[in-house]
């Protein structure tokens, strides 16, 4: 018996010692990032937008976005519009693929051609819809032509990683997509689906070698575990701190919180085709019934912003500075409801996803409570993602539903959901549709801005949705980390990040 006991104690000691030494060994050269969303594949053809966050560690686009959604040169050094349907890109010279071969115009043409091939499934293909083809002028010049004037081409190209022609032809597309070989700051080492993505620095990167020698992106889907990994020092940076855990990170002296307003606008959209929401007074009433400032503080920890009575965030092209959010005024809400013939309110329901957007369910519950307070008895219905997308396509979301629309910096990308062209809209306006089409088919930036500004006015007056928040992206880091900034478009940019 004593022998057994001794073994147990010895084992327990070994556990403690072994584990602590394992922790002390955390590689000083490695930057470890805890990711909240982790896709099942790193292929650029992939569906989820977030795949790009992993793709862009190894690959690069012609034109990139920075952390503030501004366009910056990447593989293309500069560009010009020769005509509204004809763009010329001057490629960066001296860029090498990870296998040492030079990057040239042939790679660009190869990528564009396969992406627009109708037989190729490529989820983000619509981002460069209208491109008819690419033409090699010389090794470092490539022309891209579009069917109609394409003011959004550059923004669209920022979502298309350029792949190597020679490498893909040598190993085949499936293999090339399994083990990425790009021009980017990091080189592929190993991908373990659902667990981690390991990379090493590309010392020859044209933008300068990354500050750290190695990079590991870990999948940690559960928010509390992600925070724990940061506290324990297993990760240097984590994405998306759940709002209810913010205080526990704030009180740790060695941790920092960085937040940025994303370009995701969280809105609660009405089915305006049916009573009671076919009456604009009812929609207005509910807009007055919501105390958005209070919700921002309680549900989003004060990060992000209340939308200014319009769909887009301040940093998005198309923002109208003359429109302000409607104040919280429950008395006015009740008066408007009475005027519209609902002095006693009515039964209402909000459909929402759970966990897709920061605090989505909590926000829907709070909004429902505030609506109930002015007499509109509202319940919240949590819908699973697959079912949600079916309801969305058949436009059967019910009287109200919660959704976050991405703009990635330009109003075109989220105003589309209010046009007939989207086939997902409930509210409709001929003037709005006309302006939207005009804005996406002219190269005149001033005219585009004017069109979007007017569209924001129309939406402010007609209230197709309650415009709630520009959702924040709240990340956490160890104080030893420098050079990190969360991005508005949710992509991880890590080549300048270092850990002391």
């Amino acid at each position, binding site marked *: 018996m004593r022998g057994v006991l001794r073994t147990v104690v010895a084992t327990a000691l070994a*556990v*403690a010692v*072994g*584990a*602590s030494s*394992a*922790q002390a060994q955390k590689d000083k050269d490695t930057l470890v990032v805890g990711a909240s969303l982790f*896709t*099942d*594949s790193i*292929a650029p053809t*992939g*569906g*989820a*937008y977030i795949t790009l966050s992993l793709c862009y560690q190894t690959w690069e686009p012609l034109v990139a976005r920075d952390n503030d959604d501004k366009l910056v040169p990447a593989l293309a050094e500069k560009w010009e519009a020769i005509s509204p349907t004809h763009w010329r890109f001057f490629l960066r010279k001296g860029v090498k693929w990870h296998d040492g071969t030079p990057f040239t115009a042939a790679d660009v043409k190869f990528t564009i051609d396969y992406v627009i091939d*109708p*037989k*190729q*499934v*490529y*989820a983000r*293909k*619509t981002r460069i*819809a209208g491109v008819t083809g690419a033409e090699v002028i010389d090794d470092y010049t490539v022309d891209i032509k579009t069917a109609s004037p394409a003011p959004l081409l550059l923004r669209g190209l920022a979502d298309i990683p350029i792949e190597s022609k020679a490498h893909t032809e040598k190993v085949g597309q*499936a293999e090339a*997509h399994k083990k990425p070989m790009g021009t980017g700051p990091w080189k592929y080492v190993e991908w*373990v*689906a*659902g*667990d*981690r993505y390991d990379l090493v620095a590309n010392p020859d990167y044209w933008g300068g070698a990354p500050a750290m020698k190695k990079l590991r992106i*870990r*999948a*940690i*889907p*559960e928010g*509390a*575990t992600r925070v*724990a*990994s940061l*506290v*324990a020092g*297993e990760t240097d940076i984590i994405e998306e701190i759940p709002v209810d855990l913010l205080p526990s990170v704030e009180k740790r002296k060695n941790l920092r919180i960085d937040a940025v307003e994303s370009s995701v606008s969280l809105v609660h959209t009405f089915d305006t085709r049916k009573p009671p929401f076919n009456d604009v007074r009812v929609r207005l009433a509910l807009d007055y019934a919501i105390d958005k400032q209070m919700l921002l503080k309680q549900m989003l920890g004060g990060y992000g912003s209340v939308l200014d009575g319009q769909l887009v965030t301040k940093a998005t092209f198309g923002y109208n500075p003359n429109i302000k959010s409607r104040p919280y005024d429950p008395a006015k809400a009740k008066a408007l409801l009475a005027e519209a013939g609902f002095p006693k309110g009515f039964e209402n329901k909000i459909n929402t996803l759970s966990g897709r957007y920061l605090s989505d369910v909590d926000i829907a519950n709070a909004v429902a409570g505030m609506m109930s307070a002015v007499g509109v008895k509202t319940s919240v219905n949590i819908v*699973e*993602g*697959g*079912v949600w*997308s*079916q309801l*969305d*396509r058949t436009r059967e979301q019910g009287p109200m539903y919660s959704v976050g629309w991405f703009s990635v910096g330009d109003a075109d990308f989220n105003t*589309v*959901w209010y046009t007939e062209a*989207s086939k*997902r809209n409930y509210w409709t306006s001929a003037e709005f549709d006309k302006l939207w089409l005009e804005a996406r088919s002219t190269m005149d930036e001033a005219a585009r801005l004017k069109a979007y500004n007017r569209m924001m006015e129309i939406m402010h007056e007609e209230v197709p949705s309650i415009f709630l928040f520009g959702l924040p992206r709240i990340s956490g880091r160890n104080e030893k980390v420098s050079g990190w900034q969360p991005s508005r478009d949710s992509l991880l940019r890590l080549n300048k990040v270092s850990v002391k």
Partner: protein
Amino acid sequence: MRYLLRRLLLVPVPLIFVIAFVFVVLRLTGDPVAIYLGLDATPEQEAVLRAELHLDKPVPVQFGYFLLDLLRGDFGTSIQFKRPAMEVVAERLGSTLQLLSLGLLLAIVLGVLGGVACAVWKDKVPDFLISVLAVAGQSMPSFWLGILLIQLFALDLQWLPTSGQGGWEHMVLPVVTLATFLVPNFILVMRVSVLETAREQFVVTARARGAGPARALWLHILPNAINPVVSLVGLQLGRLMGGAVVTESIFAWPGVGRLMVSAIFQRDVPIVIAAVFIVAVTIVLANLLVDLVQAAIDPRIRLR
């Protein structure tokens, strides 16, 4: 031997029902093409992918194709991974089996010891303490327990890593979480079983012939009392798999449970069915093993 053969021949029957059910429910509640391509997919692009996945045919026809492929051992290609579904599942299976087998082993050892302790010290302090702990363990949701364990052992004491896969130290917390989920049942069953067996004639006879309490316990009572626990193992396997889904999510463990959940969200039917198939086969085989073990322990049980 004939018994074994008959049991194995019956395996496909529940499996086909399970697969048909999963197939139809997933197809009817969501469109994998829409989910994969996202909101702004063009109709042409959807048509291409739909044809590629044979989704342009009616659901019964799709199911027919699927079954035919299954007979050839082909579970189809995952929409997300662009690889054979069974291959993807098989890759993750090892991680889950590791977790499940260690969790089960720990639960059995703790459960049997705990149950015996309760029975030996019936109505005394140890019985009371262990029973209270068992009830508390049973009523504690495993996601909460997991987070508490992370807080204590990874953050406060810093003995163990919070999450992820790596050396054996990464397995301690998930295995304990999973075992805690099962131990209470084992303790309660073992306790009752030992108490009942202790009242049997042969035990009384053994004591009368001069066997001391320890000898009576280890030699006479335990071998006869262990059988209900063994059959409980078979019954608990399904629950254990359910627990693995939660545990894998909390501890970022790349196993089949998490894979299955994410595949359900994506309506990635080939992956879900391959995973359900493997899990079902594992459970059926494990139950068969339980039967064999029971027969080996207790000669009164005959396999017919």
